[in-house]
C-alpha cells in the first residue's frame, strides 16, 4: 500500500481514515523528528521536524531513498547494520538505538531509535526517530563540571557544609565542618547529626533544628553548639535548605554553617562595655562630685564655670564664691608664665597637658602645692571654648616626700659617717652599697667596688668559703651566719690582711633578696686583746717570781732558825710565809678575774671522783681550822669530768667564806648528792646570813657587802665571782639561799657523766 494513495483518498473520509489522518497530523506536528521507511528503504513518511532537521522539503523526501536524503551525513555501513538489525529482529516491537555523528548537521550527535511497525494494511515499515544528543551530551558534560565545581566549593569553603538524609544521617561533612567542630568526615558520615553535634550544652536530643519536609529554607542565628566528643563549644550561624535530587525528589537537608564564636565573644564584650558605659553615665555625676581630686571647668578666659566640691573645699571657698573667680586669681604670680607656656605648647597644640605642679592660693591666703592636668574643651564648631582641669592637693604628699627625703638623707649620712664598713650586695653577691667606712677600712672607693663580687675583699683562703655560703643561701634562703657576728680576715686594697668582725643581715624588697654586712676593723681590738694576754702572762711572771724567791728564802731561814731553836724568829718567819701565801692567792685571783673577763679561762678536765675530792678538801681544811666543825654528808659514786684544780678552788673559796662569816664553834655542813644528771654540792653555815638585796650581787666582780655592824673580812671581792665563773664554765650553776639571822647555804651543780 502506498501512503500517497491514502493521502489522495482523504477526500473520501471514513472513520478509519479519519483516525489515520489524525495520527498523521499528530506525527506531522510532533517535535521529535522521525521518518517511516518502506522495506525498500524509500521514505514513506517524514514529519515536519525531520524536514526541518535535514533542511529539506516533502517533495525532496518522500519516496526518495533514505540514504539519499540523509546521505553522506553519517557512516553508511553503520546505518546499514542498524537497519539490518531492525529487519532481522527476533522479537517484534524491539527498539534499536544508534548513536551517530552527523557532520552536516553542524556536527550534531544524533540518536536514532528504530523499530519495526506495521501499517494498517499489514505491511512492515520501519520507524526511525531522531533524537538530538548534542544537548544531552553537553548537559552531561556540564553536569560533570558542575559536580566538580560543587565538590571544590564544598571542600574549599570556609563555612561548614553538611548534608543529611531524611533520617538525619549525615551524608556530607566538608573540611569546613571539620575545622569548626574538630571532627573528621570519616568519624561522622552515616551518624545521626544529633549524635555528633549538640546544639545546646545539654546532651539531650535536641528539638531538632531543621525539618526538610517543611520545604522551606531556615536560617539560624547564634546557636550554641557543643561537641560531645571533644568537649568544645561555641556559637554558629546556619542556613538550612531542603535537599532534592535531580528529579526533584526530597532526599534530605543541606546546611551551611558559620562559626561565630569569636565574633560573638567580642560582640558580647562590646555589648557589656556599652552596658557598663550606659550605667556609668549616671555615675559620672556622683564621681564628679565625690572625687577627692578637684575638678574644674573654665571658659577660655579662665573664668570658673563649674567645679566639684573638692575643688571648692581645697581652696576654702564656697561653690558660689568660686564661680566669680578666675584661674589666674587663684594662682600665685610666679606660676603664670609657666602656665601660659603649658597652655600654648601643650593644651592648645594637642588638647591636653602633662601632669604638672604649681601652687594655689586659698581664700585665707595660704599657698599650697597642687598637681594637675588640663584638657581643652571645644565647641561644636571645633573652636576652643574652655578647659577642664583635675587638681590634686599635694601638701601632704610633699610633706611626706620631704620627710622621706630627709630621713633617707639622714640614713645615708649615718650609713656613710659610720666608722664601720656597711656593704650591701644583691642576691648574686654583687656590691650595691659601699659606705665611707668601707672606703676607709678597705681602701677602695664606692666607684671601684660597685657591681663587683665580694671575693676581692678577703684573702684567698676565705673565697671558697664565701662562694659556698652564697650558694647555700641562694638555694636554701637560710644561713646560720645571719644575725651572728663572726671574725675573719679581710684584704685591703694595698694587699695587707687585717682581722675583721662581720655581722650579716638578709633583707628583702619585694621578691629580691639583698645582704648587708657590717664590718668592723678589729685590728686594734685584737692588738689590745693580745696585749692584755701578754700582760696577764707577764704580770703572772713578774709578780710570782719575787714571791717564789721570797718563799724559798723564808723556808731556808726557817730551817736555819729551827736548827738554832730560835722559836720567836721561826714563828715570825711562818707569819711571813702565810702572808706570802695570801699575796700569792691575791695575785692568782687577780689573774683569774683577768682571764675570766677576757674569756681566757680554760679548763683542764679529767675524770675524777667529786666525793673523794670534797672529802680530801674538807679534811685538809679542817686540819687548818680549829674554830669550826666541818661535817660532810652524802655519797656519790658517779665520777665527774671536770677541772679538778678549779673545782677544788671553788670548794676552798666557799669553805673559807663559811668559816670567815660564821661565829666560832659553829658547824659547817657540806653535802654532796647526785641529782638527775648533775652533782649537787652545798655548804651551809650558821652565820648572820645575807640580806636579800645583796644575794644577787655577791657574784658580781669586786662586790663587797659594807654594812655597819658587820665585821668586814679583808679581800677584793673576787672569790665568789671567780667561783661562779668556774662553775658556769663547767656548765653548772652556783647559787645561794639565805635568810638573815639563819645562816647561808651556797650550792653548786655540775654535770656528771658528761665529757
Amino acid at each position, binding site marked *: 500500500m502506498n501512503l500517497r494513495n491514502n493521502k489522495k483518498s482523504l477526500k473520501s473520509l471514513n472513520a478509519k481514515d479519519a483516525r489515520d489522518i489524525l495520527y498523521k497530523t499528530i506525527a506531522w506536528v510532533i517535535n521529535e523528528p522521525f521518518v517511516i521507511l518502506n522495506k525498500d528503504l524509500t521514505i514513506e513518511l517524514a514529519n515536519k521536524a525531520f524536514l526541518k532537521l535535514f533542511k529539506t522539503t516533502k517533495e525532496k523526501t518522500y519516496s526518495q531513498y533514505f540514504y539519499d536524503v540523509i546521505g553522506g551525513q553519517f557512516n553508511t555501513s553503520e546505518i546499514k547494520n542498524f537497519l539490518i538489525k531492525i529487519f532481522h529482529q527476533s522479537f517484534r516491537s524491539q527498539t534499536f538505538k544508534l548513536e551517530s555523528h552527523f557532520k552536516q548537521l553542524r556536527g550534531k550527535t544524533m540518536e536514532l531509535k528504530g523499530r519495526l511497525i506495521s501499517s494498517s494494511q499489514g505491511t512492515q515499515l520501519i520507524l526511525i526517530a531522531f533524537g538530538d544528543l548534542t544537548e544531552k551530551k553537553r548537559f552531561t558534560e556540564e553536569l560533570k563540571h558542575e559536580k566538580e565545581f560543587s565538590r571544590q566549593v564544598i571542600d574549599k569553603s570556609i563555612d561548614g557544609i553538611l548534608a543529611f538524609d531524611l533520617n538525619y544521617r549525615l551524608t556530607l561533612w566538608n573540611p569546613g565542618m571539620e575545622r569548626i567542630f574538630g571532627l573528621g568526615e570519616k568519624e561522622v558520615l552515616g551518624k545521626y547529626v544529633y549524635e555528633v553535634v549538640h546544639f545546646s550544652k545539654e546532651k539531650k536530643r535536641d528539638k531538632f533544628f531543621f525539618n526538610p519536609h517543611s520545604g522551606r529554607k531556615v536560617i539560624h542565628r547564634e546557636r550554641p553548639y557543643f561537641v560531645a566528643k571533644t568537649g568544645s563549644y561555641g556559637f554558629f550561624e546556619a542556613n538550612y535548605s531542603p535537599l532534592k535530587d535531580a528529579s526533584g525528589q526530597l532526599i534530605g537537608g543541606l546546611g551551611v554553617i558559620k562559626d561565630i564564636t569569636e565574633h560573638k565573644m567580642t560582640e558580647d564584650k562590646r555589648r557589656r562595655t556599652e552596658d557598663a558605659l550606659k550605667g556609668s553615665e549616671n555615675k559620672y555625676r556622683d564621681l564628679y562630685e565625690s572625687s577627692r581630686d578637684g575638678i574644674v571647668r573654665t571658659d577660655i578666659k579662665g573664668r570658673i564655670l563649674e567645679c566639684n566640691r573638692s575643688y571648692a573645699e581645697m581652696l576654702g571657698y564656697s561653690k558660689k564664691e568660686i564661680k566669680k573667680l578666675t584661674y589666674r586669681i587663684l594662682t600665685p604670680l610666679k606660676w603664670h608664665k609657666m602656665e601660659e607656656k603649658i597652655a600654648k605648647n601643650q593644651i592648645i597644640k594637642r588638647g591636653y597637658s602633662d601632669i604638672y605642679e604649681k601652687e594655689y592660693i586659698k581664700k585665707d591666703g595660704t599657698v599650697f602645692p597642687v598637681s594637675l592636668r588640663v584638657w581643652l574643651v571645644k565647641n561644636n564648631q571645633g573652636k576652643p571654648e574652655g578647659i577642664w582641669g583635675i587638681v590634686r592637693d599635694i601638701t601632704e604628699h610633699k610633706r611626706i616626700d620631704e620627710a622621706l627625703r630627709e630621713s633617707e638623707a639622714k640614713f645615708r649620712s649615718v650609713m656613710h659617717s659610720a666608722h664601720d664598713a656597711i656593704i650591701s650586695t644583691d642576691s648574686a653577691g654583687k656590691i650595691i652599697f659601699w659606705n665611707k667606712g668601707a672606703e676607709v677600712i678597705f681602701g677602695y672607693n664606692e666607684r671601684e667596688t660597685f657591681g663587683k663580687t665580694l671575693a676581692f675583699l678577703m684573702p684567698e683562703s676565705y673565697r671558697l668559703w664565701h662562694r659556698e655560703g652564697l650558694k647555700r643561701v641562694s638555694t636554701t634562703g637560710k644561713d646560720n651566719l645571719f644575725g651572728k657576728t663572726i671574725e675573719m680576715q679581710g684584704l685591703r686594697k694595698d694587699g695587707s690582711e687585717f682581722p675583721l668582725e662581720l655581722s650579716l643581715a638578709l633583707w628583702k624588697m619585694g621578691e629580691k633578696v639583698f645582704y648587708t654586712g657590717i664590718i668592723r676593723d678589729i685590728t686594734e681590738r685584737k692588738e689590745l686583746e693580745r696585749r692584755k694576754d701578754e700582760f696577764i*702572762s707577764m704580770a703572772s*711572771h713578774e*709578780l710570782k*717570781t719575787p714571791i*717564789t*724567791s721570797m718563799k*724559798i728564802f723564808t*723556808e*731556808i731561814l726557817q730551817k736555819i732558825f729551827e736548827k738554832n731553836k730560835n722559836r720567836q724568829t721561826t714563828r715570825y718567819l711562818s707569819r711571813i710565809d702565810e702572808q*706570802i701565801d695570801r699575796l700569792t692567792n691575791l695575785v692568782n685571783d687577780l689573774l683569774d678575774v683577768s682571764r675570766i673577763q677576757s674569756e681566757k679561762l680554760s679548763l683542764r678536765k679529767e675524770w675524777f671522783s667529786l666525793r673523794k675530792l670534797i672529802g680530801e678538801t674538807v679534811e685538809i681544811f679542817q686540819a687548818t681550822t680549829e674554830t669550826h666543825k666541818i661535817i660532810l654528808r652524802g655519797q656519790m659514786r658517779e665520777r665527774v669530768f671536770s677541772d679538778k684544780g678549779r673545782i677544788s678552788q671553788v670548794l676552798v673559796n666557799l669553805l673559807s667564806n663559811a668559816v670567815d662569816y660564821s661565829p666560832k664553834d659553829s658547824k659547817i655542813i657540806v653535802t654532796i648528792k647526785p641529782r638527775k644528771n648533775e652533782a649537787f654540792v652545798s655548804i651551809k653555815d650558821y652565820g648572820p646570813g645575807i640580806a636579800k638585796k645583796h644575794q644577787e650581787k655577791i657574784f658580781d666582780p669586786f662586790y663587797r657587802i659594807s654594812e655597819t655592824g658587820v665585821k668586814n673580812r679583808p679581800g677584793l671581792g673576787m672569790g665568789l665571782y671567780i667561783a661562779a665563773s668556774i662553775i658556769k664554765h663547767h656548765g653548772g650553776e652556783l647559787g645561794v639561799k639565805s635568810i638573815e639571822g639563819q645562816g647561808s647555804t651556797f650550792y653548786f651543780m655540775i654535770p656528771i657523766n658528761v665529757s
Partner: protein
Amino acid sequence: MKKILIVDDDESIVEALKNALEMEGYHVKTALDGREIFTAIEGFGPDLIILDVLLPGQDGQEVCRNLKTSKTTKYIPIIMTSAQQISKKVITAYGADDFIAKPFTVSKLLAKIKTNLR
C-alpha cells in the same frame, strides 16, 4: 752526791734554790739562760735539771725539747717550773718529766726531785 742544774733567768730564784738544795746535800750548778745551758751540761753532767719555762734568748720549752731529743741528754730528768699554770699535756709534749708551779715550797720541790731521781 747527786748533781742538779738549775736554769732560770731570775738570779734571786737561782740563788735561793741553789742554797736550799745545797742545804739538802745536792751538788748544784746554775745557768741564767738557754745559751749557757749546754756548756753547763757538758762540764757538769747533771743528774736532774730544773728548767724555767720562760727564758730569755731561748724558750725554755724549746730548750727542753732540744735536751730531750739529744742522745747525750735525753735521759736526764727535767722538772719544769713556771709562774703560769701549764697543763700536763703541754709538759709531756715538750718531753719534760715533771712540772711545779711558782711559787712553790722547797719541801714540795724536794719531793719531786726525789721522785724523778729514782
